[in-house]
């Protein structure tokens, strides 16, 4: 089936059925996942799948329907139902598709044929190699949740009644490991992973296994400490927990409706002058990269926070219309959802500092390697999560700490960033190097 033609035909049919504006977002994909445990295959999953979502505006009233069944009768019924459904929504003059016709988009190479052609045996081998490396790392690694390897190859298509018909294909792969360490009768689980669009960019499975084992072993003997206030270092594996919340707080709708702690902060210092945060959908081979967003707005690189000063909020077409701004090309979605603002490749810019040098300069502090829970409010900026990691004593990672929380307010936290490391790993849409915050409250005993 020619999905491009199919998508365009649905848009045309929706307009004939009464839609004033119509948009189709269609995805097809192949996925494969293998998990291995104790050296043996545990699960293998594979499938080809597809789905599409139709959004219509009838007199600026919005309705949406999605389906995985592309049978012509089902689709015809879907179009009819969706146009009818629009009557239930209120008219909102801000609703609308991006008012731009087709643009020439940069060609982005996001598809790795090496991933698409990878034989199952090779994928299984990578998962096995990863877990073996974890077991080989330390004799205290005696159990495992498993190691996994997965691939995805897919195509996304966007067609709308302003004449846009875009598509791009992409691949991604990932390897992960969760080994268990046992020592003195206690057990700890470790975790590490790597993810990329190109096989050649993936960390080696052996490296991932080794780091996961190190993570587990390092946690052995972890204890709860006395409640205190101290500097906190966020390891790069979890540092994005802060920036994910910051992103949500920068969504235009949240800001203008008073739901964000970063409202009325445009042009103001919201972080230390060391902090520069970028959102870059055009990063070559980036996991969050795409030439057009989920509404068909061409994407672009943005400096969101520059030396601590806030430059912009994020908008999709509806919220841009509502607040008199321009869409920032950040609409993200799957076929079963409406487009909404989301991160592309959103990251804290690294510096040249080796994170271990950062640690060496700390007489007393908490090096956090894991956070648990979601006690973060983007309305108040309150941040309170469970944490575990290592206590820093006289510049050394001295002993493991667990079962404590770290708390603060995100504005104070960002302004309190005193050092930023060099160790950024682009393993998801929101990433960060290791960074140090001057002081947070650590609750324990």
């Amino acid at each position, binding site marked *: 089936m020619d999905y491009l033609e199919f998508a365009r035909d649905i848009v045309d049919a929706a307009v004939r059925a009464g839609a004033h504006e119509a948009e189709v977002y269609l995805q097809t994909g192949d996925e494969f996942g293998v998990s291995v445990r104790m050296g043996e295959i545990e699960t*293998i999953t594979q499938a080809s*799948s597809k789905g599409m979502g139709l959004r219509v505006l009838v007199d600026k009233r919005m309705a949406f329907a999605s389906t995985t069944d592309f049978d012509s009768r089902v689709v015809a019924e879907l179009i009819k139902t969706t146009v009818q459904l629009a009557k*239930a929504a209120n008219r909102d003059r801000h609703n609308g598709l991006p008012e731009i016709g087709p643009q020439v988009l940069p060609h982005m190479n996001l598809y790795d044929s090496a991933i698409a052609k990878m034989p199952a045996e090779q994928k299984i081998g990578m998962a096995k190699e990863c877990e073996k490396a974890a077991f080989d790392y330390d004799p205290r690694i005696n159990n495992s949740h498993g190691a996994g390897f997965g691939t995805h190859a897919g195509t996304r298509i966007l067609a709308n009644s302003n004449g846009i018909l875009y598509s791009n294909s992409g691949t991604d792969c990932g390897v992960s490991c969760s080994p268990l360490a046992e020592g003195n009768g206690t057990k700890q689980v470790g975790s590490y992973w790597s993810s990329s669009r190109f096989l050649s960019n993936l960390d080696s499975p052996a490296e991932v296994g080794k780091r996961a084992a190190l993570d587990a072993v390092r946690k052995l003997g972890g204890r709860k400490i006395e409640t205190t206030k101290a500097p906190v270092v966020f390891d790069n594996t979890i540092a994005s927990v802060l920036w994910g919340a910051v992103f949500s707080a920068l969504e235009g709708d949240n800001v203008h409706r008073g739901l964000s702690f970063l409202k009325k902060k445009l042009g103001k210092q919201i972080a230390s002058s060391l902090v520069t945060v970028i959102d870059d959908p055009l990063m070559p081979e980036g996991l969050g990269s795409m030439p057009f967003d989920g509404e068909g707005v061409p994407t672009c690189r943005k400096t969101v926070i520059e030396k601590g000063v806030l430059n912009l909020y994020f908008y999709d077409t509806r919220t841009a219309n509502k607040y008199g701004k321009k869409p920032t090309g950040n609409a993200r979605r799957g076929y079963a959802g409406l487009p909404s603002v989301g991160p592309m490749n959103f990251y804290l810019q690294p510096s040249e500092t080796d994170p271990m040098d950062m640690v060496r300069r700390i007489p007393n502090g908490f090096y956090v390697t894991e956070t*648990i*829970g979601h006690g973060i409010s983007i309305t108040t900026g309150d941040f309170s999560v469970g944490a575990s990691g290592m206590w820093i004593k006289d510049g050394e990672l001295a002993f493991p700490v667990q*079962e404590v*929380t770290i708390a603060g307010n995100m504005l104070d936290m960002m302004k309190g960033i005193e050092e930023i490391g060099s160790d950024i790993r682009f393993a998801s849409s929101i990433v960060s190097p290791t960074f140090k915050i001057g002081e947070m*409250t650590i*609750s324990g005993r």
Partner: protein
Amino acid sequence: MESVLMARTGHDALLPKEDIEKLLAAGLSLGGEFAEVYIQRSRSTSIPLEERKIRSAEMRAAKGVGIRVLSGEKTGYAYSDILDMDTLLATARAAAHIAQGPGTERPVKITAQLAPDYYTIKVCPSDSAVSAKTAILKQASKAGYAYDPRIKQCDVYWSDEEKDIIVANSDGLWVADGQTMIRVSVRCLATQKGVSRSGSAGGGGRIGMEYFDKFSPEEFAAEAARIAVVQLDAIPAPAGMMPVIIKSGWGGVLFHESVGHGLEADFIRKNTSVFAGRVGEKVATDICTIVDDATVPNSRGTNNIDDEGTPGQRKVLIDKGVLRGFMTDRLNAGLLGLSLTGNGRRQSYHDYPIPRMTNFFMEAGESDPEEIIRSVDHGVYAASFSGGQVDITNGNFVFSLTEGYLIEKGKLSTPIRGATLIGNGPDVLTKVVMIGRDLALDPGIGTCGKAGQSVPSTVGMPTVKISELTVGGTET
């Protein structure tokens, strides 16, 4: 049999008996011991109301088949949204490949079975006009703004789903269920002197539109508004260990995290849970009885059958402090030599089932909830929560407070800002010192995530006193 399935799902059986049997046989053809066909058809409606306007009306439809083959400890899984037999046979063979053995064609015969019925629906959401749903949203929105002049935002969200599932397997099982769900949630924002605070509330369940004969949208809005307004005067939460009293109902997320996941049989079989190997041991104070009950009528977490076709059951997991059992799915029950408990659940046909909770709660105790509060000289009263998480290997768990109060000399005093509470599962169970008579389940808004799969889930408990727990505030 078709009529039995139709009665339960209200629709056709999607795949005829002979075709399902062929797929199961294909699943076993490479030496697998067990094959299963899972057919799903679902339709859901969501309607957001924001800033007094119905922002959109949305419908989602999905239809597909997932085929699973087990061989020893291994699982092969493949799924398809294309339901013609050529594609489905290829799907079955892809799953069968996990066995990689010589196999013979073993014919399979399935026999229709009737699932129990814990969710009678009077007025199907799919039979209701969209206008009935938007009316409910508007009632809630109006009540939210009317609650207090400081309420500046009130958003209300509607969702309903009808999901038909048919499960058949190589043991001969063939069973179906029609699963309805409704959920309404409200979020309010209160603003005073430049300070803004939010509050959320909602409810729902496996029930039809008759839900609103008993629960009013105005009540949900008033609750969300109340929390937002109370939070305006909240002071920073304390930091450190202290007695904590947890309010009944949604507070049950404490036990869901501290105990529940650790009793799921996959973690037990892999020996990765801190509760592995401890059946028969005293793991909690002897006033604690904790159950997982899939049979609670019309509750969000209830399953007539799980997603492997096993009838939903009530299991006592901890009985007066003693660990009695675990929650199993077929794979882990078989490997551990345990019985099926009806806890094999999956998010959709994209996923293979794993052990999950249903309605997971602590049974009522004997204390007067007021007396429980009076027993604390200095501590925290935790009233509302946003969720939690657990590390089942070391047992550390968290849950996050969205409405709480200081307790001073046995009385609730100043409201405190949101904070995360952290503890250790086995440890916290030994610190449950008082349990109230007032068992309540959460109002029907919970979703549990595990291994990338989200399933609707209910928690519950009476008012409970934990002698000490770490409160993750900022005030030392």
